[in-house]
């Protein structure tokens, strides 16, 4: 597994850059991951989604899909795309330090 260093902390990620151990994530790491994704500033609305992703992962063991985010996070799907332009479920999961939400097949 590749490792990346954020704010002096070494974390393990998978090939696509998703944390393999969500316990290694800290709030001060999130803006650094966001910048790599091209998001220069994390607003309050970004944080609402990031914290929701963490909460969902902690309680259910996987991150929510875009559709579930739109129904439950308090942020509409349209706004989610404005906040996380490369696909909210994946991008917010990456910034929140949780594994890639699994596609249901």
């Amino acid at each position, binding site marked *: 597994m590749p490792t990346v260093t954020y704010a002096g902390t070494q974390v393990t990620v998978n090939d696509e850059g998703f944390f393999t151990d969500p316990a290694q994530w800290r709030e001060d790491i999130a803006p650094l991951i966001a910048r790599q994704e091209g998001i220069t500033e994390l607003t309050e609305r970004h944080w609402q989604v990031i914290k929701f992703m963490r909460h969902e992962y902690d309680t259910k063991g996987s991150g929510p*899909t*875009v*559709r*579930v985010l739109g*129904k*439950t996070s308090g942020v509409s*799907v*349209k706004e*989610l*795309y404005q906040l996380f*332009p*490369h*696909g909210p479920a994946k991008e917010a999961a990456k910034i929140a330090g949780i594994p890639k939400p*699994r*596609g*249901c*097949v």
Partner: protein
Amino acid sequence: MLGDGAAEIVVIDPDDEHVYQPGLLFVPFGKAEPDSLTRPRHRQFRRGIAFRQAAVDRVDLDGNKVLLADGTSAGYDVLVIATGARLLPEETDGLTGPGWLERVFTFYTLDGAVALRRALAEFDGGRLAVAVMDMPVKCPVAPLEFCFLADAYFRERGIRDKVDLTYVTPLDGAFTKPVCNRQLSGLLKDKGVGVITEFNTGEVDGAGRRLVSYDGREVGFDLAVVIPLHGGQSYVERSPGLGDELGFVPVDQQTLQSKARPNVFVIGDAADIPTSKAGSVAHFEGEVVARNVTRYLAGEPLDAVFDGHTNCFIESGSGKALLIDFNYDTEPLTGRFPGRIGLPLLRQSRLNHLGKLAFGWLYWHVLLPGREIPAVGSRMPAAGKHLPSASR
């Protein structure tokens, strides 16, 4: 365990028409007749099983009863939820607006499949977009099969060169599991089907003939075949504590006991488990649910375990099909099923196509009456599969 006659079984359903859903795929191409796909529901049950035709208003989990739309109720010791998934076309902006059933169709309902047959017959060129709105959907390979069959259909009509076939998916590939994705992507390419990935459709503009994604991309079409959003049944939403935000019912992945109450079990598409929403899954779950319900009623610990076993024929056109067989831990692999001598896995063959056709008969005469298919058990067989060394 329980003796004969110790349990009384009542089936509640709002209608008495059972549709053979795998047949819907063939209706638009004139390869299945709508009349041949439905049979009376009550005729499928074994003697001793009562059928009550009524819509469900909601489930009273504390009172152990199902409240029916006609104002009556049905009490239970154990409730098995088998109410499947519901299509939600109205949840996508514009989908049921102008153009719906004129140039925008779905083959996921009998009426839709019949209407699409007429539209396909009149279609003489342009772009046909096949678009999945979002996961989960029933039978996630069906939209790909539709592309393969459409390719063969237009070839037979001699107008394939006038048709641009495009598959539009919210996933990052034709299928999420790597080995199968490679195989199916290759097949789409061979058949000249364009693929647009990570396209989350936010709007279907039937008048403007375009799909618009949430991130602002557009796909134009002359004819669109969409797989609408899916959710659980509305009574689940009206039953506090029963379902999740999409109306599916959370269960233990192994025992299929609901997380809401120990005396509620779930079988088939209604469950929130990470498998395909497929008939084979419901079939393989049957043995597990039946045993665990029996154990539960006898006051014994649950011991039957579902491994996520899924088995799908994938019709690839021109009288051929592929077969995939997988579970929670093992992705679809090459090899043979159900053992070293058997149907070829993940490879086009005429044998698999014949298997798919024979399956219609097996469905009505073996699966629905609850009989076993010889050599095909609930658990996924490992024999015959080419397992990578790292796989379990």
